[in-house]
Structure formats: structure tokens, C-alpha cells
């Protein structure tokens, strides 16, 4: 599944809406402030595309709500905003630690053999990588099983691709615009003189 143009359209609209909220506040602010504004509104726009159906989108909205509650409330209209922001994050993390410790104890009693060790190492490696993936994907720590994790990753990657594509086109357009201004102001108008 690739990012569709309708997705990009929707993302752009939502992002613009978010930037509108910032616009009156933005004059004479530093570059980092502007960057933060851009990024936060882009993130909320990306997450709101999914309308609360995926775990990562909810987690992302909650994360940005901690940084800028006002923006999130404005961007997400209706009841959805309240429920999403006030939702408490599940406390699965604690349980996982306990489970892991007990598994370690159990493992010590098992007998070893060559093949099993190799398999066990492979499994450990895979587990490490999945933990790494959980750290990267927003809300990953709260996804209990691997199937859900991979599904969320799929969706997250597609949304990220949409976001990157739209942002890149905007940047290029803005850059081309500023370049063209410089070009036409600087160079002689030879085309007109020849005619």
C-alpha cells in the first residue's frame, strides 16, 4: 500500500489548519519555535488521518498533547479530542518486566543442547529487535502481541511516507519560489529586449 493522493490531500488540509492556529503567534519567533510548530502540527495531522483507530495514532496524539495541549484540542474537533487526550496510558510495561524476570528464572533450569542454544539465541535476537521496534513506533510499548505490533508498524510507515512526501513537495515548492524570485530579480531581462 502506497500513500494515495487523497491521503496526501487530507493530510495537507489538516496540516494547514494546524499551521493557521500558529500563524498569529509566529511573528518574530526563532527558527526552532517555528520548526516545532511545523512538526507538531504535521504529527497531529498525520495521526488524525486515522481517526483514532490505530494504537500508534492515539499514542502520538497523547505525546504531542503533552507538548502543546492547546494545539491538539483545536485541531481535533469534538468529543474525540477529549477522550483521546484524557485517556490514561495502559500500564502494561510493569507486567512485562515481571514476566520477563520470571521467565529468566525458569530458563535457568532447562537443560541445554547445541541446537537449542542456537535456536534460543536466534529467538533472543528477534526479541531484542522487536523491543527496538517498540521503542521506535509510538505507543509500541503498549502493544502486547507481535502481530499487533507489526500491523501498527505497517500503518505507521504508510502514514510517515505520506507525511514525508507532502512535506517534501511543500519544501520544494517554497524553495523553488524563493529561488525564482532571486533569479528574476538578479538577471537581465534579455528576452524582452530581443523581442
Amino acid at each position, binding site marked *: 500500500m502506497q500513500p494515495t493522493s487523497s491521503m496526501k490531500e487530507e493530510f495537507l488540509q489538516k496540516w494547514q489548519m494546524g499551521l493557521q492556529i500558529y500563524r498569529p503567534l509566529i511573528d518574530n519567533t526563532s527558527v526552532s519555535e517555528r520548526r516545532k510548530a511545523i512538526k507538531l502540527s504535521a504529527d497531529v495531522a498525520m495521526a488524525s488521518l486515522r481517526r483514532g483507530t490505530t494504537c500508534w495514532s492515539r499514542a502520538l496524539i497523547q505525546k504531542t498533547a503533552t507538548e502543546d495541549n492547546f494545539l491538539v484540542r483545536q485541531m481535533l474537533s469534538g468529543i474525540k479530542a477529549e477522550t483521546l487526550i484524557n485517556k490514561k496510558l495502559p500500564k502494561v510495561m510493569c507486567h512485562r518486566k515481571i514476566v520477563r524476570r520470571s521467565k529468566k528464572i525458569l530458563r535457568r533450569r532447562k537443560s541445554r543442547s547445541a541446537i537449542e542454544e542456537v535456536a534460543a539465541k536466534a529467538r533472543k535476537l528477534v526479541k531484542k529487535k522487536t523491543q527496538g521496534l517498540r521503542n521506535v513506533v509510538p505507543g509500541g510499548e503498549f502493544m502486547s502481541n507481535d502481530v499487533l505490533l507489526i500491523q501498527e508498524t505497517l500503518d505507521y*510507515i504508510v502514514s510517515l511516507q505520506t507525511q514525508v512526501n507532502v512535506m517534501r513537495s511543500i519544501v520544494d515548492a517554497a524553495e523553488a519560489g524563493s529561488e525564482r524570485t532571486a533569479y528574476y530579480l538578479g538577471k537581465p531581462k534579455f528576452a524582452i529586449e530581443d523581442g
Partner: protein
Amino acid sequence: MMMMMMNGGEATEAELFLNCDDMSVLERQRVQLNYHQYHHPGFEPTLPCFFPNSSKMNVGEVDSFLPSAGLDLPEIYGELHGDARISVSPGNITTESGNSKKRKFGCVDTETKVFNEKKKMMMMDREVVVEEEEEEEEEEKSKVTEQCTRSIMKMKNKAKKEQNSCSNDSSKVTKDSQRTDYIHVRARRGQATDSHSIAERARREKISERMKFLQDLVPGCEKITGKAGMLDEIINYVQSLQRQVEFLSMKLATVSPRLDFNVDEIFSKEVVSAPMMNLPNTVMPPHMMVNSGYPHDMVNSGYVHFNPMQQVVTSSDPLSCFNNGQSATMWDSDVQNLYKTPYPDDMEMVFIYSVFIKGHHTYFEIDESCGGVNGTELYPDVKYMTVSEFLDTLL
């Protein structure tokens, strides 16, 4: 011995089915053998362990039949208990030395009786149907049988050939048992059929299916096969995408100080087929281009097109219409390059096109509002002659 049975030429369906089933039993034996090998290295497996009764497999009630194989058979299979419906031809399994010769293949007279019973079992069986699936079995077996002897491999190869002929028949029989209310889960040949391992296997299949989707999504990981490698690539890709977002937002913050990317979005979805069709939509009226230079606001209020090919083409002046044409002709070639060079490389070509083909510099109306001045008014003393008058003088 069983091979002898096959060669005997009795090609009834029943026979084939029987033998086929024995094949699967053989496979299971082999797995069991390996299992025992791994878990009890010094252990010399005796043949009672080798009799996982096929119908016992079918029911799937026993949690792990491996350790208790052949020993805890439920009452219902009393008849089949002692039947050596499996052939363990002496030469094939080298681990069992002396016992093999005693266990010959079951006598012919018990054969049919056994088969009838067995068929009853199959009908009664509702929960698990053992099916032979070759390819995935191969993968699993290849891992398990790293240390297995050559002879076992030979047996497996022979089993494969029989299986191909049997698979059709077995499926016919199993279809009857499928028409029930229970959820039928197909366990693979030679694998444990208890509910836990089946659930786990289903979960693993789901994971691998989704990993395949991810493989399509993440660029450049078609060759990576293992889970760990794939996860690595996925992590890297997600991180790179996130970093790109950061970088682009920073760039955007520096480029536009007022956060107003004046985007007049025209999502031209119709403009895919004919590349040149882009041009009429995007050309601004030529009179904008005259004399006094290019108006500044024209530059900022660019038309930003999102066409389905994920290209952005800005057309704020007639020059860029050539850009459009150029980009459209570059369709098949690298589209991404266009992002990086939104400005046409060949400016000469741009001007030539604009001047001679589109005629932007000549085909426009000159009037007072354009900001231009009529030369005759500026210098009234000079005698002006029109071109046609001049040409008349030459005649």
C-alpha cells in the same frame, strides 16, 4: 515392506490411502526419533515409541504424544493398538539395531480390517485433520534434521514420492469430515497437533504474512529472509523517515519566515495520460510577462499541483510551462530528480521554446495598462516608418 505393498500393484483407493497414511506416520516417527535424539542423546529409542497411532494423531487430544507415544492409547483404539501398520524397514533407521527385524509390516489379513476401523475414526474425527503439506514441511524439517542420518533422509525422499500420489485421495476422504460445525485447523504433516502449538503456529503464520507486506513497503529488503534482519531494516527505515520529517520541518521553518506557503492546491488528477495536457492548465496569460519585469506576487502565488504521480510542479510563469512539459516527458525516468531540480536545467531551451514556439514575447497586446510606453510618443521628432511602408520602397 510397505514398498513391497506398493509394488504389489493393488491400486485401490483404500490401499493408497492406507499407505499414504503410513507415510505420514513414518514422518512422524522420524520427528519423534529426532526429538528423542535431541532430548536424550544417549537414548536408544525402542520401537514402542515409534507407534504414534495415526488415528491418535488425528484426534489431537493428547497434549504431547511424543514422550508417551504408544503407551497411553485410549480405549477406543484398542483394536489398533498392537497393529504394526507402519513399516520400519530395517535398513533405513540405523539407530535401532536389533529390534527392527521383529517389527514387520502388518499382515495382509489384518489390513482391511484395520482400514475399516481407521475410516471410522476419520469420520468420527472432528477436530483436527492431518494434512500433508510438502513445502512448509520441508522448511521445518530442514531445521530439525540437521543432525539426522543419511538413511532417514532417504526414507523421507521415498516418502515424498508416495505422498504425491496419495495427496489427492486423502483430501477426498478428509472432505467428509470437514462438513461439521467445528473449526477445522489444518495441522501440518509430522507436527504436533495440540491446540497450543496450532495456535502458536497460526500466530507465527500471521506474523510472517505481515512481514511480507512490510517487505514490499520497505525499500531494499527483498533479499533479506530472516526475521531479525527484516526487523532491523524496518527499524532503520522508520527512524530515517522520522529524521526526514524533522529535517524537512526545519528546512521549511528557515525557508518561509511567515509560515505561509501560499498553496493554491489544484489536485489535477485528470492529467496523467497526455503529458502535454499539462500546459494549457498552467500557462499564465502572457501579458504578465511584459517590460517592467516580473511581478513579485506572481512568484509567491504559485500553483502547486499534486498529480497522481506524486510530482509537484509549480507554474508561476509561462517559463515553467516548459518545466511541466519537461517533467511530463521525464515521466518514466527518474521522477525524484525533479524534486531536487525544480528549476529547469536547460534554460536556453526554455527561452527558445517560450519565444519561438509559444510566442510569449511577441503575441501580446501592448496597451497603456501594461506599463509600456509607445516609442513614437516618446520621440516625436524622429520620423517613423512602418515595416510595410519600408518594404514597399524596395519594390
